[in-house]
């Protein structure tokens, strides 16, 4: 089983050495297609198998192949696919893709995922915790270099790397951040914030991608320009975007603090009470409570004894499939809520730096 290799009580690459009170993770992705094959929508069925094998063979000859694992989509159980989606390592598009598609995944201090035959023939992405944008780029470039010598990519001098969707051509590169924006959401400054993002060629969507809700005030913010600027230029502009997001969120948090500190303090302590005593918590409630607690710690309402910041992987660990994997037997939805309450309570009690509030 896929999760035999995984520890489900924490996600190490999200609890990485660097932590932040806004940013959960930073991701960079390259989209590529191979010459000689049509794109996904027009590819000949007979070509799909060959394409898959060509990419697989190139992967097998890299130094990192033995460290991770290649999963063919058709061999994954739907449960396993959901698990990888919860972890943001595959897309729901890939989980619905045909037989000759798959994902190579390697988790270490960061996470690498290479999707084969999703929207493009190849989607290579690297995720680091918090805001390690430079490190992420350096690591991904290294892996990419190794692979690039083995595959022949569709490229034109005018449009750069040719991708199935016109939004990705050029560098084929996209930078995205998972960030926690309770300040901007509660201070009702969303509209202005979104305008600011648009002006910086950034877009925003929910926690689990396009059309999904921003549960727990968690958003994906991603670059939407890949043509007409180099990889380094995009890196620089998204770095500025990151500072913009940080500034706006801090401003909003300060505003909340000065305007309605009492209500905020009350809401945080009520949430502590719920986490301590509730006997069942649904998954959407869990995300909401986690958001309030994280805000409480980052504003100093709760004391983290100066040790570490909030463990952001909790937002993923409380998802249904991740929880189920900690158990021997499948649970009903109701039983799951009960177990979720236990799990969160235990997480906070076990971490010494939270003990002050949770014991």
């Amino acid at each position: 089983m896929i999760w035999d290799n995984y520890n489900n009580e924490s996600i190490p690459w999200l609890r990485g050495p660097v932590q932040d009170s806004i940013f959960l993770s930073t991701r960079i992705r390259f989209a590529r297609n191979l010459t000689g094959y049509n794109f996904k929508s027009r590819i000949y069925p007979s070509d799909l198998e060959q394409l898959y094998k060509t990419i697989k063979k190139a992967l097998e000859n890299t130094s990192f192949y033995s460290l991770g694992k290649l999963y063919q989509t058709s061999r994954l159980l739907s449960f396993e696919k959901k698990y990888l989606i919860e972890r943001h390592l595959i897309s729901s598009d890939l989980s619905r893709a045909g037989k000759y598609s798959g994902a190579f995944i390697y988790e270490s201090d960061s996470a690498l995922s290479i999707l084969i035959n999703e929207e493009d023939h190849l989607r290579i992405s690297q995720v680091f915790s918090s805001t390690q944008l430079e490190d992420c780029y350096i690591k991904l470039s290294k892996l990419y270099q190794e692979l690039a010598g083995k595959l022949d990519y569709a490229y034109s001098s005018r449009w750069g790397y040719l991708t199935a969707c016109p939004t990705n051509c050029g560098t084929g590169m996209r930078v995205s951040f998972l960030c926690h924006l309770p300040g901007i959401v509660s201070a009702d400054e969303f509209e202005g914030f979104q305008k600011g993002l648009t002006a910086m060629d950034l877009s925003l969507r929910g926690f689990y991608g396009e059309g999904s809700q921003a549960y727990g005030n968690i958003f994906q913010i991603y670059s939407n320009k890949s043509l007409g600027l180099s990889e380094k230029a995009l890196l620089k502009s998204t770095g500025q975007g990151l500072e913009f997001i940080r500034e706006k969120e801090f401003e909003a948090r300060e505003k909340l603090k000065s305007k309605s500190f009492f209500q905020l303090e009350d809401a945080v302590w009520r949430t502590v009470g719920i986490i301590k005593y509730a006997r069942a918590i649904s998954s959407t409630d869990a995300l909401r409570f986690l958001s309030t607690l994280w805000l409480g710690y980052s504003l100093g309402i709760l004391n983290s004894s100066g040790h570490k910041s909030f463990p952001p992987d909790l937002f993923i660990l409380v998802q249904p499939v991740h929880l189920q994997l900690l158990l021997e037997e499948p649970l009903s939805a109701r039983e799951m809520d009960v177990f979720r309450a236990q799990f969160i309570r235990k997480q906070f009690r076990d971490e010494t730096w939270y003990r002050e509030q949770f014991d």
Partner: protein
Amino acid sequence: MDNAGNSKKERVLCQKCHKNPAQITVIQVIGGQKTELKLCEKCAQKAGYEDQLRQFPQNEEGMISELLSKLNEEVEKEQNLFCPNCGLTFLEFKSALKFGCANCYEAFEKKIVPMLSKIHHATWHVRRKPGGEQSSLTLKELENKLEQAVKDERFEEAAQLRDLIKEQKNDLG
């Protein structure tokens, strides 16, 4: 030059012969000064505007039907456009916004320029090279492209090309 139609309620007389109804308005801008001269067909011909007269149909109906047939032609061209490599039609591309193969970019090039310009505010790929951004085209190629873009009044594209040329010249200098 304008075609003042016959159907206008108020008849204006030709400003030259003061006899026939004025049908043509000649607008001239010289040194920032705009002058308007309303002429009848005969006087306009005498004044040497014969060519311009011929370009315009004699009445509004004619003009509209000509515009419509031009539009139809464009639509038909678009409907018949397809990628010879993968067979994707332009209309299919337009509705799904996904290319069928690498060759589609070339097959639909003229049509996708405005779309890509809207998405990326750019219509040329650039690479990073030490010290700056660079196009994968040579200076000469870029200059030719710029000339063509200006000619075709594709100004946003021309602006990006101008920047790329400046960048390359800086590198050389």
